[in-house]
């Protein structure tokens, strides 16, 4: 097995892990289980970034991006999520809009849709890793699904993070990652958005005594 074969195998393995963790997030309902799942997904994403950086012509910048992704997705975001979780301990999806079996079926359908949608990205990209981009898009779609069908504040944040991981995976696989300055900005925005949501969850718990978004029914037309 040559080095590039080995690299492609490793990237495919990491992509498999990404998809598996996304399905896992759909399957488990306890918030305490979702946080480790997201951490594992962060490790898989970092692995993709690191593997690509090892091959990259302009290495240094890609290495910085990989380190940044690792710090963000494996350390900072799980830390913030744990703080949200502490606000509403024992939170569990009590009234999910869709049951587990149908969610898993939906995930299969969304993955097929992602495969169809990724066609142009695969055709246009010169890099062989682009063939794995459907995984990134599938992650985005599953993230939307989680955010749309769950009622808990924490679960919605998890959905948002799945979407973000999917977008990051698509960026790495299709284009070897966006330029450093953009990646820096995107990471800063993500951390701040999760922080804002954490503070809002705290205020929600203080005003409603609960992090259940089902209570958010005051504003409508």
């Amino acid at each position: 097995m040559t080095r590039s074969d080995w690299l492609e195998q490793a990237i495919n393995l990491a992509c498999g892990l990404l998809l598996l963790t996304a399905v896992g997030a759909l399957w488990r309902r306890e918030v305490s289980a979702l946080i480790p799942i997201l951490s594992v997904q962060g490790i898989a994403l970092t692995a993709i970034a690191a593997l690509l950086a090892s091959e990259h012509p302009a290495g240094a910048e890609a290495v910085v991006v990989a380190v940044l992704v690792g710090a963000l997705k494996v350390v900072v975001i799980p830390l913030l999520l744990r703080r949200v979780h502490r606000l509403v301990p024992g939170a569990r999806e009590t009234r999910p809009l869709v049951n587990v079996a149908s969610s898993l079926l939906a995930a299969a359908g969304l993955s097929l849709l992602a495969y169809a949608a990724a066609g142009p990205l695969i055709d246009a990209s010169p890099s062989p890793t682009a063939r794995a981009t459907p995984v990134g898009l599938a992650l985005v779609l599953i993230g939307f699904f989680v955010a749309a069908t769950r009622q808990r504040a924490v679960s919605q944040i998890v959905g948002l993070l799945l979407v973000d991981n999917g977008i990051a995976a698509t960026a790495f696989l299709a284009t070897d990652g966006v330029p450093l300055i953009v990646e820096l900005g995107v990471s800063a925005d993500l951390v701040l958005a999760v922080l804002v949501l954490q503070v809002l969850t705290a205020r929600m718990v203080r005003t409603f005594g609960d992090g259940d978004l089902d209570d958010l029914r005051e504003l409508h037309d």
Partner: protein
Amino acid sequence: MELALFGPVAAPVAGAVLAATLPRRVAAWTSVLAAAGLLAAGIALATGTVSRPPGTAPLHGVSVADGLLRADALTAWLVTAVGAVATVACWASVHHLDDQARAGELPKGSARRYLVLVQLFLACMSVAVLASNVGLFWVAVEATTVVTAFLVGHQRTRASIEAAWKYVVLCSVGVGIAFLGTICVYAAAIATAPDTAGARAALDWTYLSEHGAQLDPSLMRLSAGLILLGFGTKAGLAPMHAWLPDAHSQAPAPVSALMSGVLLSVAFYGILRYKSIFDAALGPGYVRTLLLIAALGSLALAAVLLIGQRDYKRLLAYSSIEHMGLIALGTAIGGRLALAAVLLHILGHGLAKAVAFCGAGQLLHRTGSPLIAEVRGALSSAPTAAALLGVAVVALLGLPPFALFASELALARAGFAAGLGWAVALAFVLVLAAFAAIVRHAAGMLLGSTVDPLTVDAEQPPHRPRPGLRWVPLVLGLIAAAALGVWLGPLQSLLDSAALIAAEGTR
């Protein structure tokens, strides 16, 4: 000129630093100065871009900061709009915070947080407009969501927390879709020149504009859909508008003025610049169809929901969706005349909507009720606030002499000339329905008798604002909106150049 490029960012950043350190009243007035500085920087950019030395084409932009910031006539127009609306809103903020403090509704530290966040919000909008790079533009637009989240939730009531939550989640997801679109554009751009892989230049507006025709069409089709959906969410276009009425009605009035008046347009500015790139890659039909759907959808939705509206700040929020629909319609029509109308509409709507929200905020403070049905005969109980709100609503309805009359007329002419008469006709039927609904609600609120047990409570006299400077910014805003409708003066050449850039791409 090069130095002036830092002005629109430096002024609000300095304002934020000062707001964090000075006492509240001084800080509030300093933030007005910072906003005026932003406006001055916009005017400096405008004169710089229009009066280029002979020999250089007037449309070439100038860039600084390692090519990250860049200004041309279109940028200068938007910065001027942000500065003008910011000046009105920051001035109104001074009195808004005073009123809140007098009513004992201002917890310790919350005024400071408000002032700092407003300045950071202005800085983010400036960066978005000045960004030379589509990636940086995205980052700045998402940053506006993060910065404004606590401003929406400023009042800490149940409803405002709900609005802030929906705002952050829906806008982050929506703008996330736009980032996916940005990645598709990047993939298409580096495919045109593989050695630019990893290079920032491939994401520059200028690079994309120059190479538009070479970008892979199937990838650009995917990207155009994602970008329109993503930035369309932030611009409040139907069907991705769900967060807008909640956020704009719950935020403090001056913040609503900024969000409705300019933030929507700043998000739409991305679509405006992207359109010429997509048109070069795909031909004019594709994006035009998508924009027409969004435009007519927004107009129809606004017209229907305006009719049964009960809350007057929500009424103004839906009117913003209506005006964003008109802006999208003008962009769909394309061409210099329509795009000049769009740009004039952006500025005119920004000013009129800012005054309307600030007037509505004063009325809310006086009457204590956000409901249309509980505010009756405001012209006699709170004459100045009601009169200013009334005039601003007249401006928003598109009546002469205000700028929106001129822009809507130009839009209709351009539409018929471009063979989109049916869309324009349909749009104006919907605008007429919205017109009737707004007139009915506004007439009920402003005219009529005051003998109303709900507004005049003998036990608790209504808060009477101290007169003084509080009406000055609103009057200035209305004068500017009217003046723009009558005579553009020196702004004419800026508007022409900006429309040309929007029509033919960044160069």
